[in-house]
């Protein structure tokens, strides 16, 4: 056999994301986490009393919980060094022109205002701890759709927020959910009334600019019976030498016969600890579709969870994770079948290279009453060199005998025979390998919003170009 071919890859081209702005924040809490800091954040945000109590209770829970005993090493994270609240020098506005120049430039470079014009029905933009821009098409406003930042929602729709906020992801769920409950700030609130179809996506973009800061945005989406929505979430940050923390929380309520597609492209910088919790509660005949791309961050722990709570509720999960040098991306999905005839499809691809570590972790739980639950899992991992690691750690827990559960996983490298086939058609080796890698993620890429699919293909191109061994 001829010498073994390897696809060596260099670090990702991140210039676009790495442009830092000067820190013009008008207020920052002290680093660390104390009751005083929580009271300070709460006062600045003009929380109602119940929210302050909620925050304090969450802090108590946070202090009582241990770090997870599994998954990536989190010892690098020192909460005493993290600034939990950074208020940018900007008010929330509904017009890009009113956004301060440097912040607007950032979002311009990321293509957000452009995307709003072309392909979105509404946009939200968060800079550090606060949302600086929110806007939605008038037509949707008239149909009763609400899309605003969480702070405004807490004032204008206090009852709804109070009814749902952190009920699906309670603070005692795990340490970072508790942390989120204590220091949350910003995020989006979406309410789609019964029967309303939001055909064009809404998008929120989260940008963390301040060094050593944490971002704790809360996303609460309620899709009422028979309604539908496509929501896109984008995240990025410039790289610093200190650890940044993202512990967001996403709670999705998909009511009877409703449909929600939640797409995420996460491209945090490689000093980010991304410990995010996402969960959907799906009622009868409802559908949750997750599309999840994890490319950035130093450490990620992200496993969107679907609770199929009503009969015939359905989950489609499509995910891709790309771990390179210095990254430990622990991602996956979990599904809880808690009602009869619920079904789920989980389809993931992971790539690891240049010493990166990727883990697919999942849980499929079928409770006793969930007759005729069906779940099919397919996860494939591609390793581009022997410096990297790729682990697959699924768990299935099935009660009763009326379930139909299938799981399949593969780990391997680029096949020499496939490379030979393509090169025999005149395609050079580098391009042949890139084509095979792109083909590997194609089933996922085609689920992404177009701009992101292009971006993902570019990522693959950039990472594979010119570095063949």
């Amino acid at each position: 056999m001829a010498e073994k071919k390897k696809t060596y890859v260099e670090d990702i081209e991140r210039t676009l994301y790495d442009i830092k702005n000067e820190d013009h924040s008008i207020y920052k809490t002290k680093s660390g986490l104390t009751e005083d800091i929580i009271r300070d954040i709460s006062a600045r945000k003009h929380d109602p009393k119940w929210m302050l109590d909620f925050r304090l209770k969450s802090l108590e829970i946070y202090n009582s919980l241990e770090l997870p005993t599994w998954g990536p090493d989190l010892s690098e994270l020192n909460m005493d060094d993290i600034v939990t609240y950074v208020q940018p020098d900007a008010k929330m506005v509904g017009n890009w022109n009113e956004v301060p120049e440097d912040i607007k430039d950032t979002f311009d470079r990321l293509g957000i205002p452009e995307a709003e014009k072309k392909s979105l029905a509404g946009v939200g933009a968060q800079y550090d701890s606060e949302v600086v821009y929110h806007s939605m098409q008038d037509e949707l406003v008239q149909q009763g759709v609400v899309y605003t930042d969480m702070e405004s929602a807490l004032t204008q729709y206090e009852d709804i927020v109070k009814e749902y906020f952190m009920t699906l992801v309670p603070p005692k769920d795990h340490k970072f959910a508790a942390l989120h409950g204590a220091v949350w700030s910003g995020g989006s609130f979406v309410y789609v009334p019964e029967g309303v179809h939001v055909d064009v996506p809404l998008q929120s973009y989260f940008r963390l600019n301040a060094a050593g800061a944490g971002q704790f945005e809360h996303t609460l989406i309620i899709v009422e019976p028979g309604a539908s929505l496509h929501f896109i979430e984008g995240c990025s940050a410039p790289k610093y030498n200190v650890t940044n923390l993202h512990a967001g929380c996403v709670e999705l309520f998909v009511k009877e016969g409703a449909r929600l597609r939640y797409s995420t492209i996460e491209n945090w910088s490689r000093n980010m600890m991304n410990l995010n919790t996402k969960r959907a509660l799906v009622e009868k005949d409802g559908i949750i579709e997750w599309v999840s791309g994890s490319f950035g961050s130093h450490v990620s722990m992200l496993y969107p969870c679907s609770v199929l709570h009503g009969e015939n509720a359905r989950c489609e999960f499509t995910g891709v994770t790309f771990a390179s040098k210095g990254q430990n991306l622990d991602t996956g999905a979990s599904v809880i079948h808690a009602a009869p005839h619920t079904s789920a499809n989980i389809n993931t691809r992971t790539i690891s290279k240049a010493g990166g570590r990727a883990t697919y972790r999942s849980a499929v739980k079928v409770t006793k009453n969930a007759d005729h639950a069906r779940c099919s899992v397919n996860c494939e991992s591609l390793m581009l060199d022997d410096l990297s690691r790729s682990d697959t750690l699924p768990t299935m827990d099935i009660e009763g005998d009326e379930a139909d559960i299938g799981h399949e996983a593969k780990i391997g490298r680029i096949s020499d025979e496939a490379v030979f086939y393509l090169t025999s058609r005149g395609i050079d080796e580098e391009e042949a390998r890139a084509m095979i890698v792109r083909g590997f993620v194609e089933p996922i890429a085609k689920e992404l919003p177009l701009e992101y699919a292009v971006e993902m293909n570019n990522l693959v191109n950039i990472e594979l170009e010119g570095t063949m061994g």
Partner: protein
Amino acid sequence: MALQEKDVNNGTPAVTAAALAAEEQQRAVFSRIPSRTWRWLGANTAYMPEGLTDEPVTQTITVEPGQRDAVVLSERESGAYTVQADVQEGAVLDLVKVQLVPDDAPYTSRIFVHLGRGAKLNYTAIEAGAVHTASKLEVDMEGDDSQSDIWSLYFGDGESKIDLNYIIRQRGQRTDANMQVRGALLGHSEKTFRGTLDFQRGSAGSVGRENEEVVLLSSGVRNRSVPIMLSHEDDVDGHHAVSIGKMDENKLYYLMSRGLDLAAAQRLVVEASFQPVLDRLPASESALREEIDAYLLGRLSENE
């Protein structure tokens, strides 16, 4: 991260992380999976069955280079059994374990096998008895070109608990591991199967296959499956699959159209799924084979 099952289980009491942690501290641990995961799934740890102290009956097997050895372990009594096997260069060990311990007695077994260069393990296990079975199989495939071919069958009924943890460490180059597990669960039995293929760095050219097929035959059963694949090496070909479910209704229909009643048809389908494992019992053990057949048939009929 840990899930709060309050809203989720429709009234089933939630298992809190704290309660699980307390349980882990109080009970003696029998074995763990090589890489931990969420606690609420209860998959991380297998506990010592009650009523057994961990004082093992140990047996040592050495297969000299180039030799072939066949060992049949026929276990009928409650106890903690340990086997340490060293299969040296180019040697083959055919290891059969048949566990038919009385259904009110606890049982544990730990089997460690080391494979030298070009060595091969053929392992066949029948786990059909005991009220609580905890079995661990650990294969260290250190030698280049070593092979392990593992076929295991479990059968749970009544209140029985079966807890299996198989870990195959592929360390040498061009190692070949195959893990095939078949099971059937009836009554209120509970089973956890953890199967790990661990491709360690340097295991270039290795392949690993893992497949578990479980048939669920009663609404009271609980099945946990944890197929793990760990890889530090890109030049490997790893694959695992699990299928959990009821019996194939088309198969049952076909058999019933030939005059079988439901129970007989079910029995036939379970037997068919066990066949590849049972067929590996050595021809010389025909009495044992007949005994197992009669035993399984008896248990299947009893549960109709």
